[in-house]
């Protein structure tokens, strides 16, 4: 593994822009380890050093934006990319308790895409894969097509919660449309449900929230935000440790607001531009030179360390 060197011949300057952008979004408590020109490991610790997963910690893996059904130039083999990630997950020295998938399971909400995704996800050697819907999963019949394959609790709702390893997990659907011309939202019904759900959780319990679109506004002209995220954040603010895991923007960005740390994840399908990237007017798939794609796709391993506010995160590209 070579050390990152900005002067390295053949270094892609766009990568440097991405890194500076990431630095701008990163909180002070975060350390990036960069190897081979890509952010390879990220430790979120108060001491400013990367943390290895403690032996008795709850660890789980986040994957996102698999876009099963996509077959354009930016990645003609998204199933191959997912299987590559699955091999990485199955090879982890400490087996994760479960996997979360933060949305855009499919590309076009087609039944065959959901079916294929469910079939391939079953190759991950964990007890369960918890999914939430992205806007690509709710295209033709709202969330109903998705729920036929991924109904978490079997009650026809696309939001849910569960407790594991002393952590309260909440899965949300923030790709609902209520008002023309605005960003997608959670909606009143879900906000009320969230309030009721959190009423039974002690303030010291670590909370992990899954939501496809970031719960903070990254770039409104591209819809990279949730219209009513302020209401959800207000409900989460009283808790001592809140980690929000998002997908949607196909790159790692993060923000810390008090006790709430928000992290977006890499995709397993294709890269997107950096927020509002100059010269690119829209958030469409970015085709990168052969050999570069695997560096921009990846998985994230998370560990909940008792007594720590922050989860330990390791973002690993498929190839690096």
């Amino acid at each position, binding site marked *: 593994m070579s050390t990152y060197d900005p002067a390295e011949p053949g270094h892609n300057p766009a990568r440097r822009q991405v890194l500076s952008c990431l630095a701008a979004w990163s909180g002070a408590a975060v350390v990036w380890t960069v190897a081979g020109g890509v952010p390879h490991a990220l430790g979120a610790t108060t001491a400013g050093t990367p943390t290895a997963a403690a032996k008795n910690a709850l660890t789980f893996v986040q994957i996102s934006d698999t876009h099963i059904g996509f077959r354009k130039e930016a990645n003609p083999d998204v199933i191959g990319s997912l299987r590559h990630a699955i091999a990485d997950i199955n090879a982890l020295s400490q087996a994760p308790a479960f996997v979360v998938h933060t949305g855009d399971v499919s590309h076009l909400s087609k039944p065959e895409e959901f079916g294929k995704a469910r079939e391939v996800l079953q190759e991950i050697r964990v007890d369960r894969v918890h999914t939430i819907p992205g*806007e*690509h999963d709710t*295209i033709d019949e709202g969330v109903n097509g998705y729920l036929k394959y991924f109904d978490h609790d079997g009650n026809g709702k696309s939001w849910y919660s569960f407790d594991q390893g002393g952590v309260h997990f909440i899965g949300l659907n923030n790709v609902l449309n209520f*008002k*023309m011309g*605005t960003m997608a939202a959670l909606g009143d019904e879900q906000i009320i449900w969230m309030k009721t759900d959190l009423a039974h959780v002690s303030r010291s319990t670590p909370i992990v929230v899954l939501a496809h679109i970031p719960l903070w506004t990254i770039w409104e002209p591209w819809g990279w935000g949730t219209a009513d995220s302020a209401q959800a954040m207000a409900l989460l603010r009283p808790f001592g440790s809140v980690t929000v895991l998002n997908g949607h923007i196909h790159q790692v960005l993060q923000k810390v607001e008090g006790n709430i740390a928000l992290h977006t994840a890499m995709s397993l399908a294709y890269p997107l531009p950096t927020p509002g990237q100059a010269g690119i*007017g*829209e*958030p*469409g798939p970015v085709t990168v030179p052969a050999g570069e794609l695997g560096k921009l796709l990846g998985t994230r391993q998370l560990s909940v360390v008792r007594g720590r506010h922050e989860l330990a995160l390791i973002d690993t590209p498929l190839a690096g």
Partner: protein
Amino acid sequence: MSHAFSRNTIRPFRACVALALVFGAGFVMPTIFAAAAPPAPTVDLNIAKFAFAPKEITIAPGTKITWTNRDETPHTVTSNDKSFASKGLDTDDKFEHTFASEGDFSYICTVHPFMTGVVHVRKQ
């Protein structure tokens, strides 16, 4: 009697159809039929770079609009009043809708609700 009557009226029509088939085998066919029954005026719109282009348009009643998705990302054409709604449109997929009556029809892409457009239907 009625048999003879109908044959007389049909004969010139048949000739016309035959002419249309001969001359209109390729590209001119719609023009020839236009003389008998004017076809609906048509307008083509693009969905490109996460925007409807043009975003706003004024047409006469009876006009058919065809939207074509030029992006690699799926989009929809979904009216606010639910009077028309496409399925998810993949790259180069098309959606057509004929606007029969006057009015203002605003629409969005439900995948990207920040994408908006409006069709004004006015007698001209």
